């Protein structure tokens, strides 16, 4: 049983507090351990079950393949060097798509913030454009820009730009009007309001749209590659599908999952760095 606090010496109380803290930390670690364990078990059992199902012919191997085949395919692609051009092209398209998308979207947001008139004029167009499925514009981009990198990046931009504009413009408008009043009381102009209040206040939002746009960009790029590409991970999926090589399809999917997660984590890391510094 715990003794009453008042009867403890200073040293005893320190010890007692330390003990409490250690218990708390232990509890936290235990939870973390179990979460990790269950996560690992889930993944492992999924892979094992899939492998088993494939080898025992419970599922159609032609369509569903199985992990060791997929793994072998990936290793073959990596060692032969066949994977790299595809991977580089897709990653390049995604990177350009999401960086340019965030940049252009933010610039557009700045433009319509600067001119409330323009904002009112563009409003219905933005609503329509935001509501429509932009990948449907793919064929038009291909006709306009030719079957290749540019058309794919444009498809990606059509997805990322508008959402960025809307989100960033919203965050511009949500900046505390009193901060703007502070600037105004010192005789600051609209430019000062923007550079000293609006932009720094919206900076975290702009950074967090990067996170959204990574995912968006992957959608745009893969769809774009489905439509036109002769190179890239999206192309590998379509090609594998056409020649009925589903091991190739699945291995491309695995690579996409890994690389996309990696990119997302990179952006999260950059976000934490940039936002924490303030």
């Amino acid at each position, binding site marked *: 049983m715990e003794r009453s606090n008042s009867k403890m010496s200073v040293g005893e109380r320190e010890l007692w507090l330390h003990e409490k803290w250690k218990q708390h930390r232990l509890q936290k670690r235990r939870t973390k351990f179990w979460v990790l364990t269950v996560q690992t078990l889930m993944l492992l059992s999924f892979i094992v079950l899939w492998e088993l199902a494939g080898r025992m012919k419970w599922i159609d191997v032609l369509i569903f393949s199985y992990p060791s085949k997929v793994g072998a395919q990936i290793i073959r692609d990596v060692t032969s060097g066949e994977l790299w051009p595809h991977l580089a092209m897709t990653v390049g398209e995604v990177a350009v798509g999401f960086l340019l998308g965030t940049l252009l979207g933010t610039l557009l947001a700045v433009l319509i913030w600067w001119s409330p008139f323009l904002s009112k004029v563009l409003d219905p167009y933005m609503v329509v454009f935001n509501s429509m499925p932009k990948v449907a514009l793919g064929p038009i981009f291909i006709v306009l820009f030719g079957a290749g990198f540019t058309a794919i990046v444009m498809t990606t931009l059509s997805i990322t730009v508008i959402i960025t504009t809307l989100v960033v413009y919203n965050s511009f408008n949500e900046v505390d009007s009193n901060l703007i009043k502070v600037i*105004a009381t010192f005789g600051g102009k609209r430019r000062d309001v923007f550079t000293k209040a609006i932009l720094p206040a919206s*900076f975290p939002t702009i950074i967090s749209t990067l996170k959204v746009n990574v995912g968006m960009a992957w959608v745009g790029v893969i769809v774009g590659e489905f439509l036109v590409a002769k190179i890239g991970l999206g192309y590998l999926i379509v090609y594998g599908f056409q020649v009925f090589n589903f091991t190739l399809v699945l291995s491309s999917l695995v690579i996409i999952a890994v690389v996309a997660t990696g990119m997302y984590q990179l952006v999260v890391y950059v976000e934490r760095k940039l936002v924490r510094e303030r």
Partner: protein
Amino acid sequence: MAPVVELRDVDLVYVTGREAVLALEGMNLAVAPGEFISLVGPSGCGKTTLLSLIAGLIPPSSGEVLLHGRPVVGPSPEVGYMLQQDYLFPWRSILGNAQLGLELTGRLNNETMDFVLELLDGMGLADTAKLHPNQLSGGMRQRVALVRTLATNPDLLLLDEPFSALDYQTKLQLEDLVVDTLKQRKKTGVLVTHDLSEAIAVSDRVIVLAAKPGRIKGIFDIPDNIARTQPFFARKETGFNELFHEIWRELEDSDGKEG
């Protein structure tokens, strides 16, 4: 002495989507150099609007607002404005916040920087210069806001309920600090407040406003023994309570039709 700020027959019309409302009507007011006045009145009497007019944030619909005898056409470095809350910029350091006004008026140099540091030091904030606002208490933050306002060296300070968001103890301390600072630096002050005892304790003159439309209802000169005493002790001075009740009655009159 020529007044620092003067309002002559000022009307202000406030236009909304639905209607145009007369927010202020026939305002005549003059504040002498070094004087500290308070504006009290029911909500909707246009207290904050009056400050915005003097600050040059909005133009009068008719009449004239004069600063040192010249019409006000926009915000001027001679006027400092303190808002209800500190509204420090969370991404700036305390020093960065304090020098914001100097940046905006293009007067940031070594000399003015020294002045800012001296002000921070004078308010016991020297150690906080590199910290960020979220690391400071409410009272400290409002002191930083005061430094920010004083940094541009205005000779007229507009105070829009700057103590209303603070706890009672901090509020009393800050009242003393603000009044001392203004007196020491020979600044003129216009305070808007809901707190009648605060108004009496800190000022030389209390102006009672009536609402709808906002207009002056009564003017009360605060006797020297109260006006010259630090706000904290002023509340204990003889005549304070009587004055409080006198102004209170005047306020109740103007408040009567509200709600």
